[in-house]
């Protein structure tokens, strides 16, 4: 717990000084449980502007509970709270989003089997409510996955999101059928429907939509198309939608060449250059994107009309390896492959690709257990180091930064070890086993900060834990700041915070106490 470690004299005087010297911390008592998703950061654009603490309080009546939503600002000052009365123990906040003028709170009502959206203005006055009934099987599957993972996973396959559209409203992304198609529904701040865009119901493909970015004009995303629900072969499409009308202004496939296949990790719109930029990985022609081991990175640029402006590959074995520091080369030769977590572009045009190494290793105990008829996996994942690829504004590879960290283990379900490297990476990601936590950026895209946690996952969180912060940006400098995050708390979490900070949260089960603290980074 982040109790102030002070002398007894301090403790005595602190009692009376607390009001005067209110630091950026909050300690809450009477907290009976604390999942990671109990706190969600509120983003305004790129920056964290506050937090919502969602908790079930007491019984409201025979069927309902009181749920509290406590709002904090970016400095952890308590702003206000809202109490809502909803079905007992069966009402969860899935997501919050803020579009500059209104908050959109996205709930799941498990009792009624509905999704509910509530919007509030910045004074926390309710603006609208929308109950979404008749959820598709795909939506229900995704809800279960989101609840099970407790907000630890990133939604890599599209699905249930509520995306803020600056000052206009929110777009709800959902599935049609058993993930057969997708539907995008735009609402204004009062939750009046504005436009709706769905995949073609007659299409023979399964399609999902991942919203990547919302610019002044476009909602930019990627569509993954495959032959069937269980199909491992994906085709990626770049899509741009006019945020005002909901009309598609661009839809183009990431063309597969004669020599390789491409996957799409990021698709964005460069407002200054007025061009779309696609970043992904390429694979051998016979391999499957996302499933097998990729051969390298690529970047493709398109005009607003969808015309190809240029394409550039970066082979792991050639261009990338040549730029790697010696220790990174050694780890690559040790069988590690890269998982791309995030791709961001600075205001000066420099692009940063954040990746983390992983590989599959044989597990002696798992093999023995399997031989004895157990269900343990004979293979496990091993998480390696962090890498940041820096591309110049002309998309030439500038440098590769390597950040060594202790290797940690990722337990893989039986059978996963036989899958391709790409899919194993997705499994590790969906289990929340990568050390990478999140990437923060300031509103002007001049400062970025990658946060990772490194500790021995086999021994648990009580062991020595390092919260690493890699900062980079317009000044061209890369700084690594390590926080000693070792704690005796029952659970510890790191959340994004205002630029230059992270928020560290410790939960003490025995004391029913939750401690939140903003930590200033030395970057």
């Amino acid at each position, binding site marked *: 717990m982040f109790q102030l*470690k002070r002398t007894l004299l301090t403790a005595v005087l602190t009692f009376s000084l607390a009001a005067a*010297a209110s*630091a950026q911390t909050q300690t809450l008592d009477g907290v009976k449980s604390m999942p990671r998703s109990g706190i969600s950061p509120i983003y305004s654009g790129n920056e964290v502007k506050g937090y919502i603490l969602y908790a079930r*309080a*007491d*019984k409201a009546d025979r069927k309902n509970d009181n749920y509290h939503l406590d709002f904090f600002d970016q400095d952890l000052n308590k702003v*206000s709270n809202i109490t809502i009365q909803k079905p007992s123990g069966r009402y969860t906040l899935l997501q919050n989003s803020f579009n500059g003028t209104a908050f959109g709170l996205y709930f799941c009502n498990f009792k009624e089997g509905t999704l509910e959206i509530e919007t509030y203005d910045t*004074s926390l006055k309710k603006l609208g409510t929308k109950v979404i009934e008749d959820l598709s099987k795909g939506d229900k599957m995704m809800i279960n996955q989101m609840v099970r993972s407790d907000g630890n996973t990133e939604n890599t396959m599209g699905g249930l999101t509520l995306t803020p559209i600056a000052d206009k409203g929110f777009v709800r992304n959902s599935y049609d059928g058993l993930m057969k198609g997708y539907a995008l529904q735009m609402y204004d701040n009062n939750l009046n429907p504005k436009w709706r865009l769905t995949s073609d119901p007659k299409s023979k493909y399964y399609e999902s939509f991942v919203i990547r970015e919302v610019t002044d004009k476009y909602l930019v995303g990627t569509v993954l198309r495959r032959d069937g629900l269980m199909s491992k072969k994906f085709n990626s499409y770049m899509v741009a939608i006019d945020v005002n009308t909901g009309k598609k202004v661009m839809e183009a496939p990431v063309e597969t060449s004669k020599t390789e296949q491409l996957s799409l990790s990021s698709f964005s719109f460069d407002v200054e250059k007025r061009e779309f930029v696609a970043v992904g990985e390429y694979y051998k022609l016979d391999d499957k994107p996302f499933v097998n081991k990729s051969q390298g990175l690529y970047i493709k640029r398109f005009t607003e009309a969808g015309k190809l402006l240029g394409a550039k590959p970066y082979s792991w074995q050639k261009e990338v390896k040549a730029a790697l520091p010696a220790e990174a080369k050694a780890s690559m030769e040790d069988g590690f492959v890269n998982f791309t977590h995030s791709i961001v572009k600075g205001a000066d045009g420099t692009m940063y690709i954040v990746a983390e190494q992983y590989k599959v290793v044989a597990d002696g105990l798992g093999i023995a257990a399997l031989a004895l008829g157990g269900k343990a996996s004979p293979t496990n994942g091993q998480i390696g180091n962090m890498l940041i690829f820096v591309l110049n504004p002309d998309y030439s590879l500038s440098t590769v930064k390597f950040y060594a960290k202790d290797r940690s283990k990722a337990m893989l379900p039986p059978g996963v070890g036989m899958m391709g490297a790409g899919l194993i990476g997705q499994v590790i990601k969906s289990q929340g086993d990568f050390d990478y936590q999140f990437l923060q950026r300031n509103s002007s895209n001049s400062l970025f900060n990658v946060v990772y946690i490194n500790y021995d996952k086999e021994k648990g969180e009580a062991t020595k834990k390092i919260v690493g912060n890699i900062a980079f940006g317009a000044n061209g400098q890369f700084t690594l700041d390590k926080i000693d995050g070792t704690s005796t708390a029952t659970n510890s979490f790191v959340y994004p915070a205002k630029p230059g900070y992270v928020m560290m949260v410790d939960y003490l089960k025995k004391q029913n106490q939750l401690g939140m603290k903003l930590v200033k980074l*030395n970057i």
Partner: protein
Amino acid sequence: MIRVLIGVLWLCLQAGTAAAQQTTYTPYYSADTTQAYQLAVAHRTAIQAHLGAAKTGNSEYREHYKRIVRETSSEVYNAIRHSALLDAELNAMVQRVFRQIQQANPQVASARLVLTRNPQANAYAVGNGTVILNVGLLPGLENESQLAFVLCHELAHIQCRHMETSIQERLTTLHSREMRRQVRRIIQAEYNINSRMKDLVMGLSLDGSYHQRRHERQADSLGYVLLKRTTYEAPQAYRALELLDHIDEPVVKEPLELGRYFSCAEFPKTFEAAPARPQSIFTVKTPEKTVLQTTDTLKSHPDCAKRMRYLRELTAGQIAEGTQPVTPEFARLRSISRLEVVQSWFDTDCYDHALFDALQQLRSDPQNAYLRSMVLLSLYELQHYQLDHRFTEVVSNMSEHNPANFNQLLTVLYGLRTTEYKQLSACFAQLAPAPADDEFTLAARYAAAMLAADQPQATALRQQYQARFRAGRFTTLLFPAPAATGRKTR
């Protein structure tokens, strides 16, 4: 003739010594804490003996009473044990005022005053006769009469047995059949327990505040009567309340001259261009309050304006208003208590406040070696906490309730990189050399050497400090034994 000359010489020497004392006050410190310990134990014992055990009520009432006695005596014990200000000058001055009041009011129950190093402007009394006066209150007053009124007010609380009455009233309400019935009803109802309990507690709180406010009015009234019996000026009671109304405001309201202190040719930093604090996305207004919940009603003390109106009536207009002349003696008391306040902020890890107060005072006393030392030591501690990722534990939040110039300092502190402390310290040192050779200056020179990453110099200064001040006030802070304190060796 020779005798006369010797006499004159002796007088000159005495005057010289007095003049030296005028300028060389450094905050109180004694490595030997026996006196504070004995005093703390005596007050704890006196409180326990005075409050004794509950003579009425059920077992829960008695147990609750016992807990209150334990907590009160322990709180007072800690306040005295760890922060009693037992110096020969400041404490002597306030004790003299206290004695004069007691002598003029022999009928008042016996009481003892303890001056503490708490920087908050406050004073309070415990039923047994212990009066705690925080040093933070002294810089805000103008004369001994105003201080005497504050002490008379606290003595009035003791005389009227307000503490005992409050405890009794509170416990009687809390452990009454009616209260138990209400709690049982809420729990049995099963629903909305939190909000109903909150309403019940709010009712209790308002009820308690009402009684406390009634006590404050009585204390003002009796305090004024006690003051009138002394040789102090009774009209100053009104002025004391006038000052208390603005006691939290800084001495100087103008922006801090940060550029003057921390910017130089080698480090031309522009402090005025510090980025504004990001605005909150929320536009939530403070919830509207009912008549019962006005800000004033919820306070234990009525607003000063109300107290002043009451006192004006009580004194039939015999009041002192507006700025009062300050005697050199009291000016001295204010000035040295301000230094104590700086030290107290520093000792309680509130380095932002220590730095702010030191910089404020340097404006009018730019050559003060102690203040200059505290600036450097505060910077050193701030850098240490920043490196240790504990910066937000020792630096306040920016708030609209803070004075503008304090927020100005916070903005700068929050924008500082760990590498910049070195330059800040170097620029500050250029402004004027530190000629003094006392403990503070030596510690500050060590801090500056550490900030400059000059390890040989820091080692030499450390050895020098440890040789000269074996049990110095900064020994534990600056040179901790790693195993004993858990703090990283620096």
